[in-house]
């Protein structure tokens, strides 16, 4: 789409902050989330999980469980399809183990009973004989000689010879000559960094209600970021024809990437098929932690060379990501995002996807990118410190711009990194004085953003109001932003549009709500569907007036003659055309189906002030400012909300959150008391600056905003801690014991 086609001003609705359409339901407790559904004759399910990190399943005896009064069905792997291949096989193996339990919490069997209490009692009666196998949970240990092999033969062709079989994919990219670049530098710093796995931490556990009959037809209600994907995977895992399974997305109580796949949904359907009754399955919080996707843990080496004037001469990174007992750790994302903010002549990045005895990693907000930013932006901060340079000036000097050859290959189109850096520099926060014991950190962050398959339908009602059907679950207020875009095109009030998340039987395929794609792709599709509707509305007016359809334009919700030559007719409002549509050609519905590919990449710059208590090692966040390019903020309040939420999650990742495994390979902290996400008293207000550098790939210049906001905080907080406490931490989280240890080391010289 040429840049001239991007509308950047004179918006009537876009850029305003109306109440969200689902607001009333959500403040009154009326909104129906995953666990809020029930059905006549419904059973309750529960899942038997492995207590071992790695164990061969010798036998499963379900006779005692089946004998318990109220138990209606028991399923094991034998109750799923056997012809499953590729990634679907990995998902099935994760959903229900076959011959080996691969991590603590891996599902082994499931039960449906006439109450949740009976189901929970029954799973204790399932007798499983395990042969415990050696396990490994650490990424570096899993790559080392002699590490237990998770599954031999999993590695793909990308992996160079001689690596441990747990290394299953390999990535290598870059350009220029890094050795020559390092030789030009006045200072080269190389450091090793590690980050622990964190969980998306959505407050709503996975929950679903499934019904599958002997006729192969099914209904599934579930909390998900993408119900077409659930339909596709579940039908494959159960041997169903895809269209025979109708999936409806509930309101979703947070996802952040973690609800882009399936965990319990195929199990509920298998239990239902066996019991011939609807089955509800809801994870406990412990199950969410043990068996739904955390992030990868990482081990990283980053080396950057800089001249005295701040010019980066070369950058190199090695990124090892552990993604659980399955391939798929997003190491290529880590590698490709690492140096993306900078225009580099010489850059080289390598990634390793490593399997270990942990749950299968799932996407978490800009998957792979925050860890890279932690390592890279920490090294840049260290270089700035040692060379006595301003961290924003150095980033401005090296910033990627339109036309820069990105570290991961292509040339950037119109991007807004420089604008975020300039806005950060001009922000009062950046020049505000610090109190003793406080330190300031800054960091940039990058995410690609994504388009994906999108299908939208916009139907006119007889009174001229509009039903907008989209297929992307609303994970952050998207019904409001999509209705705003429809209102903008149609010229009718926002309140006259009802946006519905359609089920899989009501629209064409829609890719998952991920990749910050919804406001971009469903937004673009909504605008195009509205334009399609307008074309049809204009044709009705043209027929009524007896003029060419080309001679009719659409203005402020009315068909009007395009100019004086078209004829002299009064504007024809949408409600009038709608009232007569039955006798003027039938119902009016606009639609749009495409795979938009113009999702503009997104950059952010964060500023954070922290103070470290030298007695306890506790870090307090004193002030926080997010500056991010949104392209165009459709509903600014929800854009700010994305910025603030990403920052808060990043602060948690930086300071507190981590998966802690014992020597036995079991997860030690599977409750919110021990896996500590930020609470209200941990955080200050989070200031936001919305930068708008239009994305040429969207009619209004929209860029996705959901993910980039979690990329800078890890490094920004680490840089602030370094400035406040005088010690640099190379491992996350920077929990009080780690900070105390670093302070003690420093004191001991």
């Amino acid at each position, binding site marked *: 789409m040429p840049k001239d086609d991007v509308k950047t001003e004179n918006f009537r609705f876009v850029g305003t902050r109306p109440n969200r359409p689902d607001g009333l339901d959500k*403040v009154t407790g009326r909104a129906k989330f995953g666990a809020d559904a029930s059905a006549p004759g419904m059973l309750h399910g529960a899942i038997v999980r492995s207590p071992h990190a790695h164990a061969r399943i010798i036998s499963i005896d379900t006779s005692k469980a089946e004998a318990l009064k109220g138990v209606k069905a028991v399923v094991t792997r034998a109750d799923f399809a056997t012809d499953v291949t590729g990634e679907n096989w990995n998902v099935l193996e994760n959903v229900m183990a076959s011959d080996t339990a691969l991590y603590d919490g891996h599902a082994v069997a499931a039960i449906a009973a006439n109450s949740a209490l009976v189901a929970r009692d029954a799973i204790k009666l399932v007798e499983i004989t395990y042969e415990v196998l050696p396990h490994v949970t650490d990424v570096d240990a899993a790559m080392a000689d002699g590490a237990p092999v998770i599954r031999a033969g999993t590695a793909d062709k990308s992996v160079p010879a001689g690596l441990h079989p747990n290394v299953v994919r390999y990535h290598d990219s870059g350009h220029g000559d890094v050795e020559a670049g390092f030789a030009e530098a006045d200072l080269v710093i190389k450091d090793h960094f590690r980050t622990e796995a964190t969980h998306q931490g*959505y407050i709503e556990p996975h929950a679903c209600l499934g019904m599958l009959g002997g006729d192969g037809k099914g209904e599934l209600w579930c909390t998900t970021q993408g119900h077409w994907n659930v339909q596709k995977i579940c039908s494959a895992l159960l041997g169903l024809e895809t269209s025979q399974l109708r999936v409806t997305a509930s309101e979703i109580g947070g996802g952040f990437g973690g609800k882009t796949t399936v965990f319990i949904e195929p199990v509920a359907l298998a239990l239902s098929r066996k019991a011939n009754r609807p089955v509800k399955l809801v994870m406990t919080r412990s199950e969410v932690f043990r068996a739904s996707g955390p992030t990868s843990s990482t081990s990283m080496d980053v080396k950057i060379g800089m001249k005295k004037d701040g010019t980066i001469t070369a950058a190199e990174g090695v990124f090892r990501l552990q993604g659980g007992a399955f391939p798929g750790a997003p190491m290529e994302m880590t590698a490709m995002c690492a140096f993306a903010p900078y225009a580099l002549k010489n850059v080289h990045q390598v990634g390793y996807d490593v399997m270990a005895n942990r749950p299968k990693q799932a996407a978490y907000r800009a998957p792979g990118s925050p860890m890279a930013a932690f390592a890279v932006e920490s090294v840049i901060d260290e270089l700035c410190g040692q060379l006595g340079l301003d961290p924003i000036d150095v980033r401005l000097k090296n910033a990627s711009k339109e036309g820069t050859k990105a570290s991961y290959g292509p040339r950037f189109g119109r991007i807004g990194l420089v604008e975020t850096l300039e806005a950060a520099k001009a922000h009062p926060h950046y020049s505000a004085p610090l109190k003793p014991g406080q330190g300031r950190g800054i960091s940039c962050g990058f995410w690609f953003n994504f388009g994906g398959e999108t299908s939208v339908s916009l139907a006119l009602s007889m009174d001229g109001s509009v039903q907008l059907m989209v297929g992307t679950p609303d994970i952050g207020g998207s019904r409001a932003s999509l209705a705003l875009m429809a209102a903008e095109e149609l010229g009718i009030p926002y309140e006259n549009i009802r946006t519905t998340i359609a089920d899989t039987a009501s629209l064409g395929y829609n890719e998952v709500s991920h990749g910050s794609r919804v406001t971009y792709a469903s937004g673009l599709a909504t605008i195009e569907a509205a334009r399609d509707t307008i074309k049809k509305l204009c044709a009705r007016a043209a027929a009524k007036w007896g003029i060419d359809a080309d001679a009719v334009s659409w203005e402020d919700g009315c068909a009007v003659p395009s100019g004086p030559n078209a004829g002299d007719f009064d504007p024809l409002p949408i409600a009038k055309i709608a009232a007569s549509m039955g006798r003027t050609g039938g119902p009016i519905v606009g639609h749009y189906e495409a795979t938009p590919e113009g999702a503009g990449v997104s950059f952010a710059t964060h500023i954070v002030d922290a103070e470290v208590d030298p007695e306890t090692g506790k870090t307090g966040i004193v002030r926080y400012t997010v500056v991010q390019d949104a392209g165009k903020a459709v509903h600014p309040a929800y854009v700010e909300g994305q910025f603030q939420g990403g920052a808060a999650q990043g602060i948690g990742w930086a300071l507190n959150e981590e998966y802690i495994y014992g020597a036995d390979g079991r997860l030690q902290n599977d409750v919110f008391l021990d896996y500590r996400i930020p609470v209200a008293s*941990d955080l200050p207000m989070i200031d936001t600056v919305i930068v708008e550098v239009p994305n040429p790939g969207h009619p209004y210049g929209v860029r996705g905003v959901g993910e980039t906001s979690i990329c800078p905080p890890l490094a920004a907080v680490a840089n602030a801690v370094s400035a406040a406490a005088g010690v640099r931490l190379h491992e996350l989280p920077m929990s009080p014991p780690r900070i105390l240890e670093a302070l003690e080391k420093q004191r001991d010289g």
Partner: protein
Amino acid sequence: MSKIHVTTSVNGDAMEFLCDPRETLLDVLRDRLNLTGAKEGCGTGDCGACSVTLDGRLVCSCLVLGAEAEGKEIGTIEGLADGEALHPLQQKFIEYAALQCGICTPGILVATKALLEKNPDPTETEVRYWLAGNLCRCTGYDKIIRAVMDTAADMRADAKETS
């Protein structure tokens, strides 16, 4: 196992139910009384999504047994609005975009209402500590805290006018 007969009051309505001695108040509200506004986020009293009031006291309903409701007055999110008229907190949460996914919202509203009844003029720090038992993963709390502070100010102004 024989069930326990419980007579109680929910949002001012007399209610009775039979429950297993092991069932929590949250289980009873959601599964027996069809009041699904209170959510189970953890089942261990750490997230606050199941917040209700029991004889006016703020509790995690996942930590209370259903049988303990005998003779008590329970307040849930479903009782916050007066018919069509939203509580000022509900109104302000919508207006301020103080919710994203909305799963924590019922618990936060119930908890905040209890705070403002106790302390109509809380400082930001007091609001943050009061809500430290109500986890929100979407918002970073910023808009929630602003909504609470401004509702409190409005309610104080209204109280002054009517007094």
